Structure formats: C-alpha cells, structure tokens
C-alpha cells in the first residue's frame, strides 16, 4: 500500500487554477521532490494535503484512507507532518516549548512530552538552543525548529517546504545528512519542495515538476534534469551544461 496517493487534485482561487489535475504516489520510505517555478502551486499542494485548503476536485489517500476534507489536526494525528515555507514558530516561547507542543500530539503527560522533545532536539542538533526564545533564532534555525516540531508529532510522511533555502553549501550538506538520517532512523516518507537543485537531485528518488499548477514532468532526477520542458520552464540552460 502506498503511503500517499493523490489523484486528479485541483484547486482554484477565484479564477486562478493554482493546481490542476495533479497525480502523485509516494511509497513508504521514499523521498519525492517537488519542484517548479515560483507560483507554480507547490505550496498549495502541501496545503491541500494537510487540510489547510479543501481541494476543488480530486482525492488524497493516506495509507489507503481518504483524507481530503479532514481538518488539519486530524491529518496530523493520522501521521502527516509539515513545515511552513514562511516559518511559523511560536515566537514568544522557547525552542523546547515549541517542540513539546508537537510532542503532545502523541502523549498526555508533560514529562513524556518533554523527554520526547529533548530526543527530537538532540536528533536535529538543536539541543544547545533549547532554552532560547524562538524569536531569537535565525531563519535557517527556525526552519530546523520547524522540522523538529513536525518530527515530534511522529509523522509517517513529512512534507518539507523549502527548509534548505538560505543555507550555504556546507550547511546544505549537513541538512541533507539530517534528512538521510530521518529516512533511515525514523523510516518516514518525505515529500520535499526545494529550489536548491543539489538538494533535490541528491535526495529524491523521484521528482515531480509543476508548472502553472500542472505536472509537466515526473521521473528520476536525471530524467527530469534533461527534460527540455523542465529546462525551459524552470532550470534554464545552464543546468544542461552542468
């Protein structure tokens, strides 16, 4: 059974078709990349999966169960975690507090939540900053916090929206490392949006390319990178050369 199965998903805002007839399947343990020009509809797909928006059309199945129409919190409790492109930490609270909020989704007691949160913080390398208020974090750190918080809800599928933007190459490498560890230790499937090609190319098992809300290509990183439609709409010719 696939972890996630999206069929013919569409969403319009007024007259604008932000996503149209989008299909995608994710198998357990896979990492799928989602790329496309700015405004192509990538984040909208995340919002549809997580229930922040209701689809105009189409179905979304999570572990075989229809989830479109469910509320965001129910979807989270079913096992889908997400990060936000524009990060949204609880600014006035500590890093630990932020992650504990996530951890509470799987337990009732404060002590358990705290232990769980500390685990996740250690895993994501944020332990040193656990008592810092979230508003004191830089944007990349906030993104890391966002991952930690989502991880604390023990998702089976994690949606990462541009969590590596703003990292330099070395930091990017570390981040990729983190994702790899997530895949191995936590055995989660990942759907990742990223404009940084190194990340997408090295992480993804498959890549879907979105343009004006429509999927214009899907395949292995190599296939996608050579696809002329993708080059024209997204990558530019430099990439062919490279």
């Amino acid at each position, binding site marked *: 059974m696939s972890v996630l199965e999206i069929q013919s998903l569409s969403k319009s805002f007024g007259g604008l078709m932000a996503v149209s007839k989008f299909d995608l399947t994710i198998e357990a343990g896979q990492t799928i990349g989602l*790329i*496309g*020009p*700015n*405004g192509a509809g990538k984040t909208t797909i995340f919002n549809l999966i997580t229930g922040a928006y209701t689809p105009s059309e189409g179905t979304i199945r999570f572990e075989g169960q229809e989830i479109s129409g469910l509320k965001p919190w129910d979807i989270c409790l079913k096992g889908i975690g997400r990060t936000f*492109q524009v990060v949204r930490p609880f600014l006035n609270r500590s890093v630990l507090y932020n992650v504990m909020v996530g951890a509470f989704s799987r337990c009732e007691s404060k002590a358990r939540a705290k232990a769980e949160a500390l685990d996740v913080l250690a895993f994501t390398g944020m332990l040193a900053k656990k008592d810092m208020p979230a508003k*004191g974090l*830089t*944007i*990349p*750190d906030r993104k890391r916090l966002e991952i930690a918080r989502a991880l604390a809800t023990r998702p089976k599928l994690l949606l990462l929206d*541009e969590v590596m*933007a*703003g*990292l*330099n*190459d*070395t*930091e*990017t*490498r570390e981040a990729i490392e983190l994702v790899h560890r997530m895949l191995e230790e936590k055995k989660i499937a990942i759907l990742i949006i990223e*404009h940084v*090609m190194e990340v997408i190319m090295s992480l993804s098992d498959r890549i879907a390319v979105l343009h004006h809300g429509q999927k214009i290509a899907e395949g292995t990183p190599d296939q996608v990178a050579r696809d002329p439609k993708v080059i024209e*709409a*997204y*990558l*530019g010719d*430099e*990439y062919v050369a490279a």
Partner: protein
Amino acid sequence: MSLLEINNIDVFYGQVQVLHDLSLSIDDDEIVVIIGANSAGKSTLIRTLSGQNPVAAGHIRFGGQAIENRPSHEIVEAGIVQIPEGRRLFPFMTVEENLMLGAYNSRAMPELKQTLQEVLELFPRLAERRHQLARTMSGGEQQMVAIARGLMAKPKLLMFDEPSLGLAPLLVKEVFNIIPKVREQKIPVLLVEQNVKQSLALCDRGYVLENGRMVIQGSGEELLRNKDIKKAYLGA
C-alpha cells in the same frame, strides 16, 4: 577614505553579543560580498547599517558622516538603502505605489517621475504590471519589485540580503544578472548571499563572517581559491 567605513562595532540582541569588533569598508563602484554560515551575523550587520539594530560600540561612517545609531529613515536619507531579506513589499499596494514609496527621501523624491521611467525600462516586466497588487505577484516578480524599489531611492549604496532566497533557478540567474546592472549605474553594492560560488564570481571583494567576527577578506577570486572557504562554504 572609503565610502563606507565600519570600525570595530559590537552589536547585541538583548544580552547576546552577535557582532564582535567588526570592521569593513566599501569603496565607490564596488560590489562587496559577505559570506558566512547561518547565524554568523550577516543580516544583523545589514540591519545595523540600516539602523534597525543599535550599535553598542564602534563607529560607522558613510561618506565621512557618522551614521551609527541613527534611525532607519535618516540612513536612507544619507543614501544607504537595503533590499531586505524576504522582499517585504507592501502587499496591498500596487507595484507602482511600492516603487513610488521607494523614492520616499529628499534626494529621490524630486526626480521621482524620471527615476520611475528609468527603473521601469530596466524591468520591462514590471511596467506591464504596474497596477497589479504586490501580493498577487509571483515570488520572482516580487523580488524584482523589491530591487526596483531599492533603485528608486537613488541609493549611494545598495545592500542586498539574500536576494536569491527561495527563487527558482531561472530567477536566481536573473537576479545575478541584475546586480551588475546596478553597478553599471554607478551604485556600489553590498551583497549577502548563501550562493557563495556565484556571488564570489561576481564581486570585487569579499568578506567572510564567522560567529560575528570578520575572519577572511580578499578579492573575489582569492576567496574562491581559498581552501578554508572551499571547505566551509562550498562543500568541496
């Protein structure tokens, strides 16, 4: 004497020191790049220059005039203009209104009409959409508006904070094409970027910031060849 001189400044957030004894200078017509790990303090430096963070010690001079701890609007008045991280457009205003606000200082205001003309020539795509609300523009277009808005201020120094952040590769290229165009207008540029390779290739000089301290400086080429930098930032 350089256009901008930063001498030994310390900057804090509350109790936490973020910039330590930091010095830097920029000359006329230069493109200067600052690179550094995240949390190094790059944005803090830019924000400090723009008067958004107070300076605890040290001095900043621009065109010979002391500007540390001046409010943002006076600094814009003096000629330092920032294109902030994340664009920060006025979402419920049209592109044109955003651009006009860019010229909200006594140097630029009188020539507003003419500058607007020039800037729109530089960004023909914006000319088509001058009456569209900023929030409905795509990410790349928004970045263009932000840059154009910066140019509207007739800056004597233009600072970019990670202008390529979150842009599709095609647009990243576009942004890196625009920066030399700015220099062509005889406006020096201070650029903060994570896209180390491309920005070092483009700049005249670069600085490396680590934990709030300037650790290396040199010409773009020198830095590109520097082993430490390769290891730390280029992932080689």
